[in-house]
């Protein structure tokens, strides 16, 4: 299950999946018959990382309120800053000969800080900040989209030959023309 939401007010195109996610639409990509696996989509990764799209099933796990009840507000951002400092200092201490040992220290430091945070990774304040980023304008103008497709067709259809015939039938055009006249008057 890979549930993706477009919380913005614009349609978002995932080019390499050839998929358009409409504004405010939620889709389970694993249920769609896509021509490549969504997990191998580079464009999807970019859109998820810049916050244009949200992965719903993962965020639900991350924001489990019971597990984060004892964590003070804003502790996460403080700890994350601290974590960055420690990692930087551990990496700067590294010498080529004892990289493995030094990495172990970095990992231990990260584990220690992770335990402090519990399993929550985003505080409520940060979550709001992140959601602001979801309204990024990534919609493509419809005319532009049509132009892109027209160019693609030009490449595909350049060197073809064909022999095609159709079953043809003719009927009186009175009913169609009568309908046109009526509709024109109404509209």
């Amino acid at each position, binding site marked *: 299950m890979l549930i993706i939401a477009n919380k913005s007010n614009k349609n978002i195109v995932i080019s390499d999946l050839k998929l358009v996610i409409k504004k405010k639409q939620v889709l389970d990509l694993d249920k769609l018959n896509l021509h490549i696996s969504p997990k191998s989509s580079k464009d999807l990764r970019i859109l998820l990382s810049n916050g244009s799209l949200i992965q719903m099933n993962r965020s639900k796990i991350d924001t489990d309120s019971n597990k984060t009840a004892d964590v003070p507000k804003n502790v996460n951002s403080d700890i994350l800053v601290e974590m960055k400092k420690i990692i930087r200092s551990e990496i700067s201490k590294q010498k080529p000969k004892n990289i493995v040992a030094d990495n172990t220290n970095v990992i231990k430091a990260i584990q220690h800080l992770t335990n402090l945070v519990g399993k929550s990774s985003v505080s409520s304040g940060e979550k709001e900040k992140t959601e602001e980023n979801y309204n990024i304008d990534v919609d493509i103008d419809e005319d532009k989209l049509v132009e892109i*497709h027209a160019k693609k067709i030009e490449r595909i259809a350049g060197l073809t030959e064909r022999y095609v015939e159709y079953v043809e039938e003719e009927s009186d055009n009175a009913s169609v023309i009568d*309908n046109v006249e009526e509709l024109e008057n109404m509209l």
Partner: protein
Amino acid sequence: MSANRIVGVDLGTMFFQVAENKEGKINIKTTRNAFVELESSDDIEDVLKQNGWQYVKDGKRYYVIGEDSLRVAKMFPGKVELRRPLKDGVLNKGEDKKLLILNELIESSIGKAPDNNSVVCFCVSSESVDGSSDNTYHKARLQGIFKRLGWKTKVIEEGLAVILSERPVMVERDGSEALYSGIGISMGSGRINCVLSYKGLQIIGMSVARAGDYLDQKVSDQTDTPISQVISKKENLLDFESIDYNDDVIFALDAYYSSMIQYVFSIFAKKFAAVKSQFDVPLDIVVAGGTAMPNGFNKKISEVIAEMDLPFKVKEVRLSKDPRNSVVKGLLTQAIIYHRKNSNEEVKEKKQE
């Protein structure tokens, strides 16, 4: 008058159709929207020409298209696979040659636009209510094909094309008639499209994937009968006014048709609830499409919905006199209106200049 051409194009899951108004007549071209790929060999072009098969050649690859693709698929069962550019009413995501074939069908049937004011109207499915497809990509791709050939495009939803072709009438409380008002349903092989219209304007639209292909597959599964036989019985023997209950396939088709009608109307009823207050008089229901062709289908719908608690009253369930061509005729109707509107606007602009 100008040499502008005005055409309606219905790119259905099963059939590809073009309608054009020519010298006082409506000319309709039809072919099956399917193809098979043949292995390349030295004499393949001779084989194709000797048999008179329709084909597309792309580099060294050969594709037999239209009705001939079915013939070839039957001649070489298991060796060649019948492929379709569309699935469930939209471009078939699993088919990498869909654009090649569709472009060839479009280019061979309508060609390049003779001028800047020639118009094509085609249709897309209404919003899918069962999460089965998204038509934004489908619509843009088709517009790209027509644009490349120089056509102006107008796009409407398939159910509205039925309304424009079949002209349902609603009698208002004061006795006046509201033309092109009612429910238009197109039952194809890929999707079922429903639109509620008032005076030719679409009020609501929806589509579901439980259409002809779905029915065929279900009946085939339940009766252990090859799909080709199910389709053959559906097209030649199914008569809702005289069901042969001893025939397992016919019996299953009858049951699945009932289930499909219930499914479609139960979902449409929920959509309708939002605009219920505006439609408190009985409505015409007009039905078209290949899946609606068995005799007595309108009576079948009437019987099934009579048992349902719908939020609207039904005046009449009417089957199109020309169910296979109804959508493409509606598209031609819309194309002519769009063309006239554009021409009138151009005249106005010139006068203002």
